[in-house]
């Protein structure tokens, strides 16, 4: 058969079946007419041979065989039998569901919540775990580099590294090509047009990893990676090009202010190319060197600031293990090189630096962080919520199936096969699930907006509705849910005994069925207890975290940072500017105190080597962080001085150098001694003494939940560092003053330079994020589960009460007290509740040790949490059964007994 013939065949086949399926009435009518014509012609022929009309018709029919059987066979020949049946079942199901809007709504809403929650989580997990970067060429040969080394018994792991380290590792022989990137929110444009946007800061080799070409102009290339070149160029993201430049081609060569870089536009990225993060498309691409030059002076000379993600493409034939070994060798060389620059670097043999070529996705990194493992947990929780929703819907369908026993029995009696009935039940539940999937996608879209705020950085663009993978996932989840919920009622419908069903009316589900329903109910209860216990543990953890004494105040503090544009200030100029800003801020009515600072707690850490007379390699005793401030530092920050004094007006340039140490540092260096008056030589042996004049309380500088920092404070007046900022202490809530202060200080800024003001609250909240996220998500899903379980319990009890109307009426007629009936019904609900609590508590105790690492100062077996959850669930169980119970005692015996 030629291809053309084959095509005609297929087309004609499709046309025929289409007509058979959707123009069924017409096709049937034609068949009737055709067969009637045949019989008439045959009868006419027989009549001509002398038979009378009636006999001729009879003979013709006889000759023909059973007309109905021929019709059936002809229908079969159309080849759409299965589809036709399904279509009929579908129409039947739609009719049935429309006839009971309440039931349909309940089922769809329940499943939609479950599917929506999972779709939302899937969107996030998928991006963090499974998807590679869009347009990435040959993702299988690309790895992200993860570093680790030992420091004082701990293994320190890093997913980001320094520019110099990147250059060192890039030289590894098994690596075909490597790239580094970072991203930042930078102000693009000047004046009215200035907007903060997401910018990718990438090495020139970055674009080579992707199958993309600039729409116009060119990308910068590896020549941009030389720190000496640092070309001030920028590649525009497609969206920015279209929105701000109207997609004009003459943008090439124009100047654009990006952060502190006044860059020349050299190209435009194609549509759909997001850069380093699909969820956060870059508005522009800046070379690492250009960015570093202006924002991170000295970035290329030191091994202090890890801020770059490194990706490598392995050479053909190089395995991941080989690449890791190779990178580790380079890392060791790099470590040695660093040792020649940095005083006091941990020796190679102790540090055992190791580099791993790992997955691009952070969730599959060699060691995943707290937030990532939380995300995995929460996806599991979402799946449990869906299971609970399924159990609920299965229960609803089962109780409905009981109500339909007569209908089913009648259909069986009329000759429907059990297979047909089962398939019909399944089609009904699948239909429900698919409608729920649509609703769920909308729920997921809304839910993800919330999740995005919790899990991903701001400015993220992603969605459920516009992402085919997530939609597909929702549909698969829906089909599974449909099968899961439909199977039990379907199987049971096929099991009913025909005669008893017809005789007995709608009362009395079979024992089998009520057992299934009870089991489903118990599972729901147990799972919600499990989730609520989790919620309780995370909420308690959050409480513990929130009650940690940080060693500084949060609410009244604002951090003020300057962004210089079009000029570069040397250290003296910078300090003078900061002093001017500080003086201006002090004049404002809402401001209590102001200090210049070197670092922001929880955001930046700085270390200097130092030596202490009488102590061998003192700075090996721990990681000592340096902070600097002016006279009002301790008053502004709210850090208490325990002994001695803070900085005062005598600590100025030229006067004896003063230092304040944290209590922990004092204890570490001079255990049991008075630290006041001790000498610390910051920078090393040959440097002058800084005299300890005060001991301050401990602070959390690097991590809220970690150990107290070993921190020391130097006077800015005396040390005169570069890159300082300001902390402003206001009366009351700082957020209310932020804008006012920003405006006042902005007026002092030269030219296009600007100030940004950030409440300390935001910084601390950022650090508490993962704790808050765990608490919120577990609580949210736990409550959702509780509501579903309550609805499930209510519907089962209400159904049982309805079934027992007659019996209850009889009891009341025989003189039972309303109270007895009430306690009987509520007791039934409570028994379910208690059994659910028992099982749920057992599960929670059993898996507790897996959650333990995610908790803070909270035992996974905290009795308080278990008791509270138990009480809550018992109360809910009583409440859910009290409503049907109160209906039960209002049963009018005369009506109840006459029913049916």
């Amino acid at each position, binding site marked *: 058969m030629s291809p053309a013939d084959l095509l005609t065949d297929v087309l004609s086949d499709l046309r025929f079946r289409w007509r058979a399926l959707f123009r069924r009435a017409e096709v049937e009518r034609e068949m009737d007419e*055709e067969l009637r014509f045949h019989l008439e012609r045959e009868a006419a022929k027989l009549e001509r041979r002398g038979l009378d009309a009636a006999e001729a018709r009879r003979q013709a029919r006889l000759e*023909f*065989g059973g007309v109905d059987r021929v019709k059936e066979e002809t229908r079969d020949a159309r080849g759409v039998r299965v589809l036709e049946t399904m279509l009929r079942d579908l129409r039947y199901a739609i009719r049935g569901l429309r006839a009971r809007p309440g039931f349909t709504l309940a089922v769809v809403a329940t499943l939609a919540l479950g599917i929506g929650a999972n779709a939302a989580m899937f969107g996030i997990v998928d991006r963090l775990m499974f998807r590679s970067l869009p347009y990435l060429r040959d993702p299988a040969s690309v790895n992200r580099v993860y570093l680790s080394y030992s420091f004082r018994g701990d293994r320190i792991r890093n997913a980001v590294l320094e520019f110099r380290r990147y250059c060192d590792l890039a030289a590894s022989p098994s690596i075909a090509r490597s790239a580094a990137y970072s991203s930042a929110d930078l102000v693009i444009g000047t004046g009215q047009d200035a907007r903060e946007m997401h910018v990718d800061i990438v090495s020139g080799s970055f674009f080579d990893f992707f199958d993309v070409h600039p729409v116009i102009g060119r990308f910068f290339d590896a020549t941009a990676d030389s720190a000496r070149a640092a070309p001030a160029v920028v590649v525009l993201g497609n969206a920015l090009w279209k929105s701000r430049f109207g997609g004009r081609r003459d943008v090439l060569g124009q100047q654009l202010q990006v952060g502190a870089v006044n860059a020349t536009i050299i190209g435009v990225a194609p549509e759909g190319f997001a850069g380093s993060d699909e969820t956060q498309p870059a508005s522009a691409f800046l070379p690492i060197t250009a960015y570093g030059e202006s924002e991170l002076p000295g970035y290329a000379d030191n091994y202090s600031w890890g801020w770059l993600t490194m990706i490598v493409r392995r050479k053909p034939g190089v395995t991941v293990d080989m690449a890791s070994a190779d990178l580790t060798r380079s890392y060791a060389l790099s470590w040695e090189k660093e040792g020649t620059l940095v005083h006091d670097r941990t020796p190679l043999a102790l540090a055992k630096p190791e580099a791993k070529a790992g997955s691009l996705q952070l969730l599959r990194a060699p060691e995943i962080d707290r937030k990532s493992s939380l995300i995995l947990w929460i996806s599991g929780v979402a799946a449990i919520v869906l299971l609970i929703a399924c159990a609920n819907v299965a229960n609803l369908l089962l109780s409905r199936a009981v109500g339909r026993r007569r209908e089913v029995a009648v259909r069986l009696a009329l000759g429907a096969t059990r297979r047909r009935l089962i398939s019909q039940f399944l089609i009904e539940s699948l239909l429900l699930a698919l409608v729920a999937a649509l609703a769920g996608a909308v729920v997921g879209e809304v839910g993800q907006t919330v999740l995005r705020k919790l899990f991903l950085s701001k400015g993220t663009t992603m969605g459920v509705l516009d992402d085919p993978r997530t939609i597909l996932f929702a549909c698969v989840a829906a089909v599974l849910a449909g099968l899961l919920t439909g199977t039990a009622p379907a199987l049971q419908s096929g099991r009913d005994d025909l005669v008893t069903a017809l005789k007995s009316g709608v009362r009395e589900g079979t024992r089998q069925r009520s057992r299934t329903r009870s089991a489903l109910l118990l599972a729901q209860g147990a799972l919600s207890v499990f989730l609520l216990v989790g919620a309780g543990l995370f909420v308690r953890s959050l409480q513990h975290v929130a009650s940690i004494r940080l060693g500084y105040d949060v609410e009244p503090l604002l951090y003020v940072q300057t962004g210089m544009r079009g000029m570069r200030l040397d250290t003296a100029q910078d300090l003078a500017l900061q002093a001017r800003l500080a003086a201006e801020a002090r004049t404002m009515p809402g401001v209590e105190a102001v200090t210049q600072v070197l670092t922001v707690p929880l955001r930046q850490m700085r270390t200097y080597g130092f030596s202490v007379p009488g102590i061998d390699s003192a700075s090996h005793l721990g990681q000592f962080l340096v902070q600097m401030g002016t006279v009002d530092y301790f008053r502004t920050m709210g850090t208490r001085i325990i002994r001695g004094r803070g900085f005062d007006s005598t600590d100025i340039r030229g006067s004896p150098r003063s230092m304040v140490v944290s209590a922990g540092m004092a204890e570490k260096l001079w255990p049991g001694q008075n630290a006041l008056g001790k000498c610390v030589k910051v920078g090393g042996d040959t440097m002058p003494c800084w005299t300890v004049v005060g001991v301050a309380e401990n602070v959390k500088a690097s991590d809220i939940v970690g150990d107290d920092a070993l921190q020391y404070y130097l006077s800015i007046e005396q040390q005169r560092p570069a890159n300082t900022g300001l902390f402003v202490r206001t009366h009351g809530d700082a957020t209310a003053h932020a804008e006012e202060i920003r405006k006042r200080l902005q007026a002092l800024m030269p030219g296009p330079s600007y100030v940004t003001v950030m409440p300390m609250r935001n910084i601390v909240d950022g650090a508490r994020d993962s704790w808050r996220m765990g608490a919120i998500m577990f609580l949210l899903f736990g409550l959702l589960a509780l509501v579903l379980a309550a609805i499930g319990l209510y519907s089962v009890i209400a159904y049982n009460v309805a079934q027992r109307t007659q019996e209850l009426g009889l009891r009341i007629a025989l003189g039972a007290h309303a109270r007895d009936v009430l306690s009987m019904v509520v007791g039934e609900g409570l028994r379910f509740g208690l059994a659910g609590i028992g099982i749920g508590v057992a599960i929670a105790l059993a898996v507790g040790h897996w959650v333990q690492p995610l908790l803070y100062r909270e035992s996974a077996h905290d009795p308080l949490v278990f008791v509270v959850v138990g009480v809550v669930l018992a109360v809910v169980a009583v409440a859910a059964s009290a409503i049907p119970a109160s209906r039960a005692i209002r049963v009018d015996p005369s009506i109840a007994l006459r029913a049916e």
Partner: protein
Amino acid sequence: MAEPVDAAKIELPQGTLDLLILKALSLEPQHGWAISERIRQVSAAALQIPQGSLYPALHRLERRGWIKAKWGESDNNRRAKFYELTRTGRHQLEAETDAWRRLTVAVRLVLEMR
């Protein structure tokens, strides 16, 4: 098909019905009854198709695109459904006729073996 068959009549081997229908339609478009009449007459009534089985076969052939159906006027001015061969149907007829000939030749050779 478990239809009772007269001793004098030959039961159709599997799949032959399609061939016969195609052949009957090869001269001109026909309606269902005429097809069965023609086969009966031409085969000197030796081949009698159970009339009922004709229609499922016609619909199956139509689905395959070997024949197509059109409503028209019959010789007694009644509306009737006429079937005609399509181009692929004609190819199919040739192919199947050919196969049938080769089969019968081969079978005869075997049967006449001494």
